[in-house]
């Protein structure tokens, strides 16, 4: 599947890791915080995706 959206995944993970690293000092809390942020960002992107998909579906039908 040739979809450029997949290129966002590594960026989300890296951004989450670095942001979490500025909040904690130990690796454990950094990783836990990074997972929380990544899930939040991906969830947000998912909601936007569904909304846009719905709009496109409404326009097409």
């Amino acid at each position: 599947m040739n979809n450029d959206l997949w290129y966002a995944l590594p960026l989300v993970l890296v951004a989450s890791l670095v942001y979490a690293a500025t909040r904690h000092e130990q690796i454990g809390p950094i990783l836990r915080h990074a997972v929380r942020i990544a899930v939040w960002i991906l969830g947000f992107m998912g909601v936007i995706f569904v909304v846009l998909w719905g709009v496109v579906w409404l326009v097409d039908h």
Partner: protein
Amino acid sequence: MPETPDPPAVGPQAHLKDPLVAGVLAWLVPGLGHLYQGRYPKAVLLLVSILGTFLYGLYLGSDKEAGWGRVVYFSFRKNDVRLYYLCQVGIGLSALPALVQADLVGRGKSPIWHALMAPPKLHAGDPPQPDPNNPDDPGQRTCDDVVRSLARFFELGSLYTAIAGLLNVLAIYDACCGPVLPEPAKKQDHEDETEQDESKRKEGPAETPA
């Protein structure tokens, strides 16, 4: 016996040594400032994640036809203002070859290092021209050539390298000022504030001046 909360493992001001030196080192190479401060796990994490992102972006912005690392270059010429570079330079040493190449090309000389991070020509007729004595020298590519050759990877590579540079700004801040107040300490502050509010409420409403 009341439970005492665990103190944060490392306070915000711990292990920072000279924040200015740490900040400069963190700019030069992601994680180097943390290495200087003895914060080894974080140094490795930042080095791998930030530099990895930058190198992957460079890889995306490279091919045999266009050359290597064509998404990172310094150019503020008319019709080619490269604002991405302002973000990319946050990565430090890794983005500095672009300045050397821009200087060479600006003086009409051929770029070095196989045109790594060299600004493309605006028009085919612009200097430098291909070396007539070297049949393998294809000459400098134009902006159009590079964008056409890399297609969507031109934007993707630019984005990856720019985000890596911006993330390093966070790492520099962390090297200079330490981690933002850890959450357990914040919770403790919040609990203290709530206790103070409750004790005030028990004492009764404050008298209002007539």
